């Protein structure tokens, strides 16, 4: 994709600016009232790997990049701050930062969600109960990518930090908090807040009360003084101070996957979106009740608009989807570009009996089997690389089906249609296969940038730029729809074979190394 483009066919403002502080880059997109992109600016930041399994970001670099892309997007749009009605924020979730509130200096690099240094700590925190110790309160298993244990690690490992934190000099935040605090003035009156979606990924917030859970805080060992105030996802937190957007309201924050749910306008119970990138994240709106999962999904907050009640979601993630196609390209050399997987797969009518379960680092939802490893099953002399390519695409579709089945079991709601976004939606064969395997229509919206759009929508709602969610729905445009074409018998037979292949991945690793 290009780093920036503008089209001359837009009306004159007003506009909403959305900041996406992502894992590999920070972006700013300016949207008009129809939800169309006016301009984009983007800048990557350094990925820091101090040790195997450790991933860090330099939060100072990130804040500099955010200021740069905001200015870049405004300039490319050819507008001034007077045309911008609000700023919305979406961010990589769970990435954890602590900084000194008097100097504004981070006390350590941010610990990125992928960082696994808290694995042992999480086991220890599980005590005799195990990883579900806090699930009833938080909806989450005790796992290294959530923020709470990362805070504890920082308090334990940065010299003198715990004392400074207890003295009230230190602030903790996920990247939304860091960006908002700096945008609204930093050491000069910056507001220290987070939204319910980001707070729901810390393992520290009680899903039922939307407040920090004191029992969990003391169990993990985190002083309440460091915590930001939990606010809704769409309200004015404060106003930008200094910079190109001086005086503009900062009016939304949503974790990236929740922002995509919002941008896809999944406002009704049972509506779901799935984002197909390197991995895949599927979220389903479950309305005003947090649904406990007995099928390996996460319970999380979908969004909360102002003083309205929060809306909950079930989340299922697939670790390996787009990255399996990259693996076929880079490790196997069977294709020259990611798009070619479709060409190769389309050269045959079916998978030739082959099934590919990419359990490269174990099986995730709904199985959670770390002892599993990848398998290609059903090989005969008949199978060609084209059949394998087909099995690769089918793997993504079957894994989505498994998440969707788990969501139906947990929520009791059948999936009516799946809204999709992300890079892999350009793969027509995959989208058709998805519709076939789910036995439900698969719908792609016209604006691919649903994450930024969701943040813009929430900010626009907060300042009255859009009157209500119905107006946002009216903006949603269907770019393509794939309808199921597979007969029920074939689907059932294929699913059975897939499940057999999944079974064969389990128990490969016999002694889990700790």
């Amino acid at each position, binding site marked *: 994709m290009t780093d920036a483009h503008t089209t001359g066919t837009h009306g004159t403002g007003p506009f909403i600016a959305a900041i996406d502080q992502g894992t590999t880059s920070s972006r700013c997109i300016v949207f008009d009232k129809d939800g169309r992109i006016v301009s984009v600016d983007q800048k990557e930041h350094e990925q820091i790997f101090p040790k195997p399994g450790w991933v860090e970001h330099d939060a100072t670099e990130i804040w500099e990049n955010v200021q740069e892309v905001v200015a870049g997007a405004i300039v490319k749009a050819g507008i001034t701050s007077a045309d911008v009605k609000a700023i919305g924020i979406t961010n990589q979730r769970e990435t954890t930062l602590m900084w000194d509130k008097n100097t504004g200096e981070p006390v350590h690099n941010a610990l990125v969600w992928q960082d696994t240094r808290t694995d042992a700590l999480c086991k220890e925190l599980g005590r005799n109960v195990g990883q579900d110790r806090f699930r009833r309160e938080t909806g989450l298993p005790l796992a290294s990518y959530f923020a709470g244990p990362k805070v504890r690690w920082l308090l334990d490992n940065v010299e003198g930090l715990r004392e400074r934190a207890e003295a009230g000099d230190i602030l903790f935040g996920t990247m939304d908090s860091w960006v908002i605090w700096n945008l609204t003035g930093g050491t000069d009156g910056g507001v220290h807040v987070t939204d319910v979606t980001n707070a729901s990924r810390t393992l520290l917030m009680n899903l039922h009360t939307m407040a920090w859970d004191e029992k969990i805080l003391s169990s993990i060992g985190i002083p309440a003084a460091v915590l930001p105030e939990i606010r809704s996802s769409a309200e004015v937190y404060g106003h930008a101070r200094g910079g190109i957007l001086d005086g503009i309201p900062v009016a939304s924050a949503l974790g990236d996957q929740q922002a995509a749910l919002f941008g896809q306008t999944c406002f009704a119970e049972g509506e779901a979106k799935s984002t197909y990138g390197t991995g895949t994240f599927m979220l389903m709106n479950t309305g005003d009740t947090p649904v406990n999962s007995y099928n390996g999904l996460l319970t999380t907050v979908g969004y909360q608009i102002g003083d309205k009640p929060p809306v909950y979601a079930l989340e299922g993630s697939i670790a390996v989807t787009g990255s399996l196609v990259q693996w076929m390209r880079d490790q196997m050399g069977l294709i020259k570009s*990611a798009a070619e997987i479709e060409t190769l797969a389309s050269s045959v009518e079916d998978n030739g009996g082959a099934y590919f379960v990419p359990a490269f680092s174990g099986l995730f939802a709904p199985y959670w089997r770390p002892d599993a490893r990848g398998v290609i099953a059903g090989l005969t002399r008949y199978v060609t690389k084209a059949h394998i390519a087909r099995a690769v695409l089918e793997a993504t579709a079957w894994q989505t089906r498994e998440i969707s089945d788990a969501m139906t079991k947990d929520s009791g709601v059948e999936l009516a249609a799946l809204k999709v976004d992300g890079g892999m939606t*350009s793969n*027509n064969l995959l989208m058709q296969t998805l519709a076939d395997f789910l036995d439900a229509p698969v719908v792609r919206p*016209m604006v*691919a940038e649903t994450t930024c759009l969701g943040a813009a929508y929430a900010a626009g709602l907060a300042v009255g730029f859009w009157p209500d969610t119905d107006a946002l729905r009216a903006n949603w445009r*269907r*770019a393509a729809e794939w309808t199921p074409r597979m007969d029920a018998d074939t689907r059932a037979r294929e699913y059975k074979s897939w499940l057999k292949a999944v079974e064969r991945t389990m128990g490969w690793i016999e002694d889990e190394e700790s």
Partner: protein
Amino acid sequence: MAKNIQSLERAAAMLRLLAGGERRLGLSDIASSLGLAKGTAHGILRTLQLEGFVEQDATSGRYQLGAELLRLGNSYLDVHELRARALVWTDDLARSSGESVHLGVLHQHGVLIVHHVFRPDDSRQVLEVGAMQPLHSTALGKVLSAYDPVAHSEVMEADRRSFTGRTVTAADEFEAMLDLIRAQGWAADAEETWEGVAAVSAPIHDRRRMPVGAVAVTGAVERVAPGGTLRPELIAAVRDCARAVSRDLGAGRF
């Protein structure tokens, strides 16, 4: 007997010489093995180098075969790559025009639809990816016929059926229409394939200016060409989209 072009014969001989094994040759070696003056050999080598057929090692100054030769035998643009590159631009075109957008490539004497974006009005529409359209009457087909010599020879040999009273079928009239398309840079289909349907299309080029496909906006004739005249802003939007996709193809090829 046709008179052969001497410099082309010499260039071919140089390529054969350089292809003989994994070797790099200096200017004097090349000149002497082919019995040429150094100046003559250098002129030919420089031309081959500009075309990418020959590369010169920066340190030794020796010549070797260039990457362009590899691409010659392997130059086919994957249609799925084309779709992936076109996705954002065609979405934007559908949004700004309010009409449906198609991306087509030449395939088996017709136009294969490789990408389709719905008209953004929430009505029920069926995805047309994989469908075929005729070369001689659709806007996509006419653009391909005008710009792609293979499409051109196919369409001239084909049976150009009349679908509506407006379909152009006579060879001379058709050729004149293609001339006009090449001159203006876009093609139209005003009820020449389907009654009540009009379309505008522009060519997509790859990095070497080869026509690899076409993009079109299609809709009801009353909206696309009210009063019999194509809306100029539609023409501009389609051409902008085609240029944007072409630019993306020229940028970072794998």
